[in-house]
């Protein structure tokens, strides 16, 4: 925001309060109420306003208080923002930040991971950083991208994951995966908070060498990195916190089957949440969200196959 006067922030309680998760704490003090705007309680208005502003040359950064609420903005995102460039050649450089994910008993309206829904929409990009360093590099890429970018911030990562972040300005490219852990026997393809679930499972397996690919961005996704790793290990496990049917893991599994069939030594395995809304009950939510044990089971199964 210091570099580019076109960038502004808008969302519910992002100004005085600093955002529900304090991501924009102190922003209004530095940049003032005209660049850090407390919006009405209307996701429709936020995204619609951002779309108009972007078409007029601004670089808006909107915050949905919870990713779940983005359904109210579906029409403007999908019908207008995603298609404007194809339809009229006008770039729509908006970034929509989406605190997403479960694991803290948020229930069905405050815990979802809707990235798959938007990855299906041509014209939208979906970014899901897992590390603090990536979060910084990717938010810069998102803001500078001429197209609408949905920036999924897993709520569980806000306070749980700490990491070194370079002071200087840098850009992490959209569409490039990161090898979180190198291994030989099985590839886990995942993103967001599930990177750490996979890592914990991999650590617990002494006799299986697990490679973890952090996609970083779900759309566009780094299929070359995934296929290269699968060609090495010949076994793939796709892990995501979103529900199973039509989840983005299905797209990855299908691509592996199409492009790397002759390299497979086992069926591609998916570990996902079941096809239900996110439960309130901590016990049920634990059963819903893939746990380390679930990933371990999948890895053991693939290893023994």
């Amino acid at each position, binding site marked *: 925001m210091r570099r580019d006067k076109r960038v502004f922030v808008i969302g519910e309680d992002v100004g005085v309060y600093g955002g529900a998760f304090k991501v924009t704490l102190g922003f209004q003090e530095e940049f003032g109420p005209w660049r850090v705007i407390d919006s009405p309680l209307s996701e429709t208005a936020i995204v619609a306003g951002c779309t108009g502003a972007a078409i007029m040359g601004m670089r808006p950064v909107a915050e949905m208080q919870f990713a779940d609420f983005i359904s109210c903005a579906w029409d403007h995102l999908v019908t207008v923002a995603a298609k404007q460039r194809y339809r009229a050649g006008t770039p729509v450089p908006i970034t929509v930040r989406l605190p997403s994910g479960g694991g803290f008993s948020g229930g069905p309206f405050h815990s979802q991971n809707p990235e798959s829904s938007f990855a299906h929409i041509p014209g939208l990009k979906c970014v899901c950083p897992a590390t603090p360093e990536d979060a910084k590099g990717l938010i810069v890429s998102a803001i500078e991208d001429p197209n609408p970018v949905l920036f999924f911030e897993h709520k569980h990562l806000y306070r749980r994951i700490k990491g070194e972040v370079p002071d200087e300005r840098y850009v992490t490219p959209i569409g490039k995966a990161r090898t979180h852990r190198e291994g030989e026997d099985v590839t886990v393809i995942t993103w967001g908070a599930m990177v750490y679930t996979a890592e914990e499972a991999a650590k617990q397996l002494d006799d299986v060498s697990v490679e973890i690919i952090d996609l970083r961005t779900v759309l566009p996704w780094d299929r070359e990195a995934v296929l290269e790793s699968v060609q090495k290990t*010949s076994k793939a496990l796709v892990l995501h916190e979103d529900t199973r049917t039509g989840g983005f893991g299905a797209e990855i599994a299908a691509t592996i089957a199409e492009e790397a069939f*002759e*390299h*497979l*030594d*086992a069926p591609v395995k998916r570990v996902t949440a079941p096809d239900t809304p996110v439960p309130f009950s901590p016990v049920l939510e634990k059963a819903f969200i893939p746990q380390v044990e679930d990933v371990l*089971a999948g890895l*053991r199964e693939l290893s023994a196959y």
Partner: protein
Amino acid sequence: MATEAAVDVVMPQMGVSVSEGTITKWLKQEGQPIAADEPLLEISTDKVDTEVPSPGEGVLQQILVQEGETVEVGTRLAVIAPEGSEAPPASTDPVPEPATAQAAAEANAAASGESTTPSAETTDATPTETATAETTDTTEAPPPVAVPSDGQGDGKTFVSPVVARIAAEHSVDLKQISGTGRGGRVTKKDILTFIETGAAPPPDSPEAPAEAPAAPAPEAPKPPPAPALAPTPAPAAAQVGEVLEPMNAMRRGIAEHMRRSLDTSAHVTSAIEVDMSRIVSIRNKLKQEYQAAYGVNPTYLAFVARATVETLKEYPWVNGEIRGDQIVTRSYVNLGFAVELADGKGLIVPVLKNVETLNLLGIAKGVADLAQRARDKKLLPDEVQGGTFTITNPGGYGTFHGTPVISQPQAGILGTYAVVKRPWVIQDELGDDVIAIRSIMNLTLTYDHRLVDGALAGRFLRDLREKLQTWGESDY
């Protein structure tokens, strides 16, 4: 009759519901002479184990199906060539239907030839024909049982895409590799290790060593997947002090049938005590006559069977069946007898058909014949099907009570137990109570309570006891 041309031996049609059989043993080796009707091999189906006689005389020229393999009815198993003939190339034409019929007829002939020589050992004073458990047969075809083609498991046969590609690129014969994957599957690691150790020459190096080194030692087996996590059971592995042996077709059949029966019928068992003193007396009288005139023993089992058939006439539901939501009753009785096999590792339930037409002698002969052929593995599958009621005799070993399992889809099974002398309260000729030494036998009726209620079962047992206690010699 000497064979003039080469004759194919085919897997015989062992009954209408049997579609395949497993070769358990070849009794002749290739090159050995064989006479017509001489036992050539043993086969096992899910109904029975039996011998297959040679369809012709000559030399066993070629064995086409090895021991342990399971093939469909009509499959060529071997070729019998005329003695002294050169070995012609084996025909690969499918076997025409008549050959199958011929083989089945041969099997029939061989089996029926045995029936005229009943064995005395089956007719001991204490009936020992039958065993504790029940039956492997039903009139319906059992669900197909997956039979591994050999002891190595089916996993051997699945080749993953990457293994197929590597095998093709390096011209590797996967049979040379011992797999460490699920079910013995050859994994990518297995084949890469195999290639790295130089066991297989790459396709472009014709000067590869002529003698390939032995297959490398298989990798140390990986720990089995945690039970709760594996969606399919891991192959069984013997722990220290344990011995693993494969189930044969009969054991699988018994296991399936026992479980299915308990899952189907509402088993209830009622018991009654029968004073067999009168039978003992009649039997002692008939014994010599039967033995001398017919070469058969009138066993207790035969008496009980005779009285049971007579009682079943008055209790058609006990001789009946639930079929869908209908009740089947019959004008005939096909009586099954549980027979323990010699090695104690199985039992079979041959069925004596239309027992209502047989007197005591006919039943005694029929049971002796079936029991002997059951032990000799000479039963035909159709002889273990179609029962309407079953008798089992665990009493041969002295037990006095049991709860047998019903042979599906029947409605009941009668258990007979040891005849023992007991102090018994009877009335003397003056009508006074006295204690006498009597020969007492317990009978149990295990019935399907879905069809047969307790009172009906009680009346059946009461009437059966009445017949056994009061019938005269001419009634049997």
